[in-house]
């Protein structure tokens, strides 16, 4: 079996371990031998996006030490995939790594998900990094449809959910208003699926706090275990 290296990301490891386990399950079902390099920590993005390049470099080096260039690196995060593939090599002055966002990798491998979402209505939320830097917007949608889900498009799928890393605390009010718009836009569907732990933490945390009638689920979970009703 071909091997893949699973990059859990810090947020996945700490806050969404189930979603990472679901990603591992999907990769296994797709016929890959999943390796979890134990020395991984974080890609350094929180510091990089805040302008702290020296701090970002310090943390990003752990990524370069943990992963090899012998097998693809797959991660259930569009944002961290962007950091690791687009920014990290230049930040560290190292050769690029082969980094894939999970759904893009599964689609490329021709994976057909189980029909576990028959009759479920879903609004797919594009994370900005995935949409505009990785240009991955169709694979997650195709996988959801293949799992039986009915996609209910957002009126403004182009709008950011308002997470934006430290933006979410520096400009908390604007960030929350952006989340509210996103949650409102998914009232019909009742479920938002996203492929990014950042958006997930932000939107789910907001939905929980205001009691919005919308569940927010990671794509890996939706595909591996199916959505609840």
């Amino acid at each position, binding site marked *: 079996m071909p091997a893949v290296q699973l990059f859990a990301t810090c947020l996945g*490891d700490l806050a969404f371990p189930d979603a990472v386990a679901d990603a591992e399950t999907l990769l296994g079902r797709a016929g890959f031998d999943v390796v979890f390099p134990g020395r991984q920590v974080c890609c350094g993005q929180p510091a990089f996006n805040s302008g702290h390049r020296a701090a970002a470099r310090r943390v990003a080096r752990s990524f370069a030490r943990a992963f090899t260039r012998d097998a693809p690196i797959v991660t259930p995060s569009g944002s961290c995939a962007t950091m690791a593939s687009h920014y990290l090599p230049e930040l560290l002055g190292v050769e690029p790594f082969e980094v894939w966002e999970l759904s893009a990798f599964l689609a490329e491998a021709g994976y057909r998900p189980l029909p576990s979402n028959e009759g479920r209505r879903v609004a797919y939320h594009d994370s900005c990094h995935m949409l505009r830097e990785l240009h991955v917007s169709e694979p997650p949608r195709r996988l959801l449809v293949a799992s039986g889900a009915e996609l209910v498009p957002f009126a403004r799928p182009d709008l950011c959910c308002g997470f934006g890393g430290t933006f979410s605390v520096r400009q908390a009010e604007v960030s929350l208003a952006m989340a509210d718009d996103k949650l409102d836009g998914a009232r019909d569907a009742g479920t938002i699926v996203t492929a990014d732990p950042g958006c997930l933490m932000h939107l789910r945390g907001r939905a929980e706090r205001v009691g919005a009638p919308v569940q927010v689920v990671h794509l890996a979970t939706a595909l591996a275990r199916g959505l609840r009703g």
Partner: protein
Amino acid sequence: MGELEQAAPRFREIARGKLANAHTQAALDSSTDRLRTHRIEAWAELADVEALRERAHRIRMEVIDDLDGHVARFTAALEARGGHVYFAKTAAEASRYVAEVCTRRGAKLAAKSKSMATEEIELNAALEAAGVRPVETDLGEYILQLAGEHPVHIVAPAIEKTAAEVAELLSQAGGEDVPAELEVLTAAARKQLREVFLTADVGITGANFGISSTGSICLVTNEGNGRLVSSLPKTHVAIMGMERLVPTTADLAVLLKVLARSSTGQKISVYTTVITGPRRAGEEDGPEELHVVILDNGRSNLLRGRYREMLACIRCGACLNVCPVYRKTGGAAYGPVYSGPMGAVLVPLLVGLEHAPSLPHASSLCGACTESCPVKIPLHELLLDLRRDLVEEGVASRFERLAFTLWSFAWSSTWGYRVSTRLARLGQPLAGKAGPGRAWASGRALPRLGRRYRDR
């Protein structure tokens, strides 16, 4: 503090007020979405969008790479046509020059067409101090002048105003009741402004572009006020940012093609005026004197490194209309002149980061701005570079620098990661009590940290 500078908490404070105003939120949503949709439709008609953007980008960078040369050629060409050119290093120099021209010509009334550069140099205040009454003749700007406010959008300055608010302002100005119906409102404004066009001693405009090879300036408007202001009064003064040059008339055509499409979704704006020098012998219209003030006011700061890309900006407003942050805050939060992503990049570069420290962070870095830019300015990446400079120039707070440094040492090894996240898990009940955790928890549930994936 100068017109462009702003203190750190200002953005957030103004944003809070805008978020609390339902009228403003509705106006921002509908107006930005309308402009954005029109832009997308207009660009969809073109065959090779990427090639056109690339061409527009190259034309702009060609000028920026030899800016001194282009300014010199423009100056020589315009002077040969009898125009006056004044190069202003600072806002104060530019305002003083315009005020002096007005005084020398004995002017009492100045008719202005829309110009962000004149906002930038606070020209109206300088004119009033010199005894000249400036009147804005762009409909949106006229409304704002009556309200005593600044433009909130570089293309659509009054988009946050409702028809009822406009009716009240025009009623007061005209001394008669104007009902809040769009056609009646524009007719009332037209009547009030016609008098200004006919009696103004000086016409003041911006310049969307200048052509280096001919010394011409180009004005783009939809109301025709730019043409009236630049041809009826005896003196015409145009204020032009030093970077607004294009090499040739053919290059101008390319940029006009992208400008109107990007700002309003038009193929070309209603009035596109190219002016080459003052009135010549035998001509019936045009001013006796034409002055072009070329404005630096911090633009030279941008010539270093990657920031030079920002000088390519043609002020189309596309990035404002797609920005999810601008859509919530409106323009005022960014400052009284430039707003949205272009403002967040430009203003700190013009005035120095220490004078606009919150602007590089007034973005979720979603990249919609970069995607929309017709001249391919990597706006969100420039914001990232500015954030780096905030740290490296010591503008970022000591607390923030210390926090990231400590974090980075902890997370530079798995051992440090394990210990620090174990502590974070134990400290969860306190996470929402202070610092960033508190800001997070102000409106969101904190994520629950359980057993790590790696420990399963």
